[in-house]
């Protein structure tokens, strides 16, 4: 396979350095709006849908990168776009199930949802699984960044007479240091605004590259006619080859990946939490999937398609044996002029950095919310005042970002031996997402799904997944749809079907046998030595899980052990964990969203649709975080005292950067004036004399 080094000119490097400095300055500028942990992680829940949509572009396109889709575009053609065009199936579940729940229940992380919906022990296991997922995702991001940059670097540097070879891991470590800088000091607001800029730039850069490619080949018709029919088809062959087939990718990406991305990617969830309200979040998700993703599919894959066409027309220019992961850089260098190539590479690497930054920020949020705070509460450690506590948490969040960056670099080691980034990512999604995806999905949409069911899904499901990974020819083969098993990387994609089915099967079986578990545990409780019996069962369950984990004995024994885990775990959870279906599901399932809305507001929602009011602001003394509008302005908005209000700078292009949420207080008689405390004006970043727009929420 042909690989490259030292692609690009000095001009390209100058353009890249200038681009990165500009982006970092841009991020640092918006970092000054970070005042507390809410701003650091969630951007203060204030932004408009269009800002979040563009921000998601940089995150989504970065993670489903130019490198991996260009590679598959070069190897298999336009079917590389299929992973971008299969996200609509779960949109109703997301828009009207998960999104309102995470906003109205005011959870700050996915594990916190598990604690509220199930139990603290569920949260503990979910935290471990989610941290593994996020750090693995960061590792994939760093791997892609390294592979993107390596072709531009020489094979070695000479420093003080010593020859230092350029290695993939070396490049990744340098990139990680740069990446960590502005996320550590900027926070979510910086990331959102940096991503907004980069979202536009990388869409522009990708489309520009396609235009250059078509022009280089002599026009669209020539490009189209050069491609073989198989390269033009939008979906891959049903079940071959093993490294790129439709059915495997359907289960890995359209099912596990889509739910994983929409429901458990903390980075994306935090983007939606940064929206000013649920409806803006729906708009951001809808527009992104409907229109931005199809454009993004062209943006990220076209270098591969153009590369394939050039390799047919002029194999001496682009050899068919070019390393697929390098095709983007190779094609960009051929068809773009010096300087322009640097700009395209800067946009690519910056987009990848956006993804990694978002994930680092999100993982730090999980650490603070699900490790730092619970441990502090457990140790009964107090930081004194609220502001003191917030300041210390912000510092801890920044240290956590550095630690997560380091772990992300180490995670690269687990993926760097896959032939392409695409396969590494596919394997990663298939393996790590199913337990959490099933846990979240059944938790949200099935009231009967209990704490013992979710914990058994995590533990028993993982046990069966381990067995599937160890014996793919026996356990995954029945689900393979005729896909040939690659001995080196068996069933990278279709294992998602097996993993999802076993996790779902375990969860459903345990939920349906809840009455039996309760009756059995009730019997045990009536015995004088009940605690000893249950402790004994817990030890047996741990030993059985260890049998599976360490592969002790043959497959039959391990399967029996896994079944034992699935029987004993629900019993021990039922005994040790307090779970009340009525209490634990209120406001936390799709069936109780209206209750969640009421809880969020603190009173009955007012769904009358009024108009927006435009007002100037004045300060009043006091500490209550409420706002006083005139009677006429409140009538215009159809608002009552106690309703929620969102007040923002009138300039729509600011996207809600200067805004604040509050509550309507008793009205006054001065139309066009709102009275608020200095604290609220400061939170909203309002400028004296600027007109504001007020809208009633809910």
């Amino acid at each position, binding site marked *: 396979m042909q690989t490259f080094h030292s692609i690009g000119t000095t001009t390209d490097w100058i353009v890249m350095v200038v681009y990165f400095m500009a982006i970092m300055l841009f991020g640092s500028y918006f970092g000054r709006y970070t005042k507390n942990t809410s701003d650091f992680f969630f951007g203060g829940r204030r932004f408009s849908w269009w800002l979040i949509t563009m921000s998601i572009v940089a995150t989504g396109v970065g993670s489903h990168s130019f490198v991996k889709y260009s590679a598959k575009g070069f190897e298999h053609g336009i079917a590389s776009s299929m992973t971008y065009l299969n996200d609509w199936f779960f949109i109703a579940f997301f828009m009207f*199930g998960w999104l309102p729940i995470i906003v109205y229940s005011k959870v700050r992380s996915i594990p916190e949802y598990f604690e509220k919906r199930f139990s603290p022990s569920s949260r503990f296991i979910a935290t471990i699984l989610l941290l593994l997922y996020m750090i693995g995702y960061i590792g994939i991001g760093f791997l892609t960044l390294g592979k993107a940059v390596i072709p531009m670097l020489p094979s070695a540097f000479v420093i003080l007479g010593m020859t230092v070879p350029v290695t993939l891991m070396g490049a990744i470590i340098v990139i990680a240091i740069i990446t960590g800088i502005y996320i550590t000091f900027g926070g979510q607001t910086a990331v959102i605004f940096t991503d907004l800029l980069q979202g536009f730039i990388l869409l522009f850069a990708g489309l520009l590259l396609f235009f250059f490619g078509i022009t280089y080949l002599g026009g669209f018709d020539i490009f189209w006619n050069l491609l073989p029919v198989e390269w033009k*088809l*939008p*979906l891959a*062959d049903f079940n071959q080859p093993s490294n790129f087939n*439709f059915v495997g990718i359907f289960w890995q990406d359209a099912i596990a990946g889509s739910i994983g991305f929409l429901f458990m990617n903390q980075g994306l969830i935090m983007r939606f939490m940064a929206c000013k309200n649920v409806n803006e979040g729906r708009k951001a998700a809808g527009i992104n999937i*409907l229109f931005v993703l199809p454009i993004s599919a062209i943006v990220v894959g076209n270098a591969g398609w153009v590369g394939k066409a050039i390799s047919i027309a002029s194999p001496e220019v682009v050899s068919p044996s070019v390393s697929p992961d390098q095709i983007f850089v190779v094609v960009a260098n051929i068809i773009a002029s010096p300087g322009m190539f640097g700009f395209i590479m800067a946009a690519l690497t910056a987009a990848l950095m956006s993804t990694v930054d978002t994930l680092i920020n999100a993982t730090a949020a999980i650490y603070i919310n699900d490790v730092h705070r619970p441990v502090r509460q457990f140790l009964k450690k107090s930081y004194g005042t609220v502001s003191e506590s917030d300041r210390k948490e912000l510092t801890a969040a920044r240290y956590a970002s550095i630690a997560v960056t380091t772990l992300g670099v180490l995670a690269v080691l687990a993926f760097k031996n896959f032939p392409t980034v695409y396969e590494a990512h596919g394997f990663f999604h298939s393996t790590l997402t199913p337990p959490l995806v099933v846990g979240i999905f059944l938790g949200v*949409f099935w009231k009967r799904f209990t704490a013992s069911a979710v914990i058994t899904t995590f533990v028993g499901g993982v046990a069966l997944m381990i067995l599937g990974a160890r014996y793919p020819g026996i356990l995954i083969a029945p689900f393979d749809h005729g896909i040939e098993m690659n001995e080196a990387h068996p069933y990278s994609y279709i294992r998602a079907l097996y993993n999802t089915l076993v996790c779902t099967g375990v969860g459903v079986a345990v939920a349906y046998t809840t009455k039996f578990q309760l009756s059995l545990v009730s019997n045990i409780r009536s015995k004088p030595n009940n605690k000893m019996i249950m402790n004994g069962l817990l030890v047996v369950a741990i030993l059985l899980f260890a049998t599976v984990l360490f592969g002790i004995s043959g497959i039959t024994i391990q399967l029996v052990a896994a079944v034992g885990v699935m029987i004993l775990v629900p019993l021990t959870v039922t005994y040790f964990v307090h779970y009340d279906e009525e209490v634990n599901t209120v406001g936390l399932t*799709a069936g109780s969203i209206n209750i969640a809305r009421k809880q969020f507001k603190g009173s009955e929602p007012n769904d009358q649709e009024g108009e927006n009011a435009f007002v100037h602001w004045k300060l009043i003394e006091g500490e209550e975080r409420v706002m006083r509008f005139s009677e006429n302005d409140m009538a215009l908005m159809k608002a009552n005292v106690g309703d929620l209000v969102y007040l923002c700078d009138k300039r729509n292009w600011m996207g809600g950067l200067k805004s604040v949420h509050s509550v309507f207080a008793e009205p006054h008689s001065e139309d066009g004036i709102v009275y608020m405390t200095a604290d609220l004006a400061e939170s909203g970043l309002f400028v004296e004399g600027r007109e504001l727009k007020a809208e009633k929420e809910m």
Partner: protein
Amino acid sequence: MNLFSHSWLPFIYLYGFGGILFIAGIIITMKAGSFDLKRPKHKKWMWILIFGFVWYIAMHALMTWAALGTISPYVVLYTLLAMVAIFIVVTLRFGKGAKA
């Protein structure tokens, strides 16, 4: 050359399974009460959901026909642009209806 397993078989599988999941999503959220067609904004969302599904079916079907040489690739582009125009017009009309 038999391209069925590379063209229409994955298409049928994608929109067969995907369609079941999509419709299940709408039914489950409606039964749960979180998606309520009595609310004007949710009526608009129903239109967007249905449009999105048809949009993707059309996109994949047209691209497949273009790849197989049944239609020109320009037909794909023009049809999709027409669909975007329809989407914008109808969605804006829903917006006016919701305010009224």
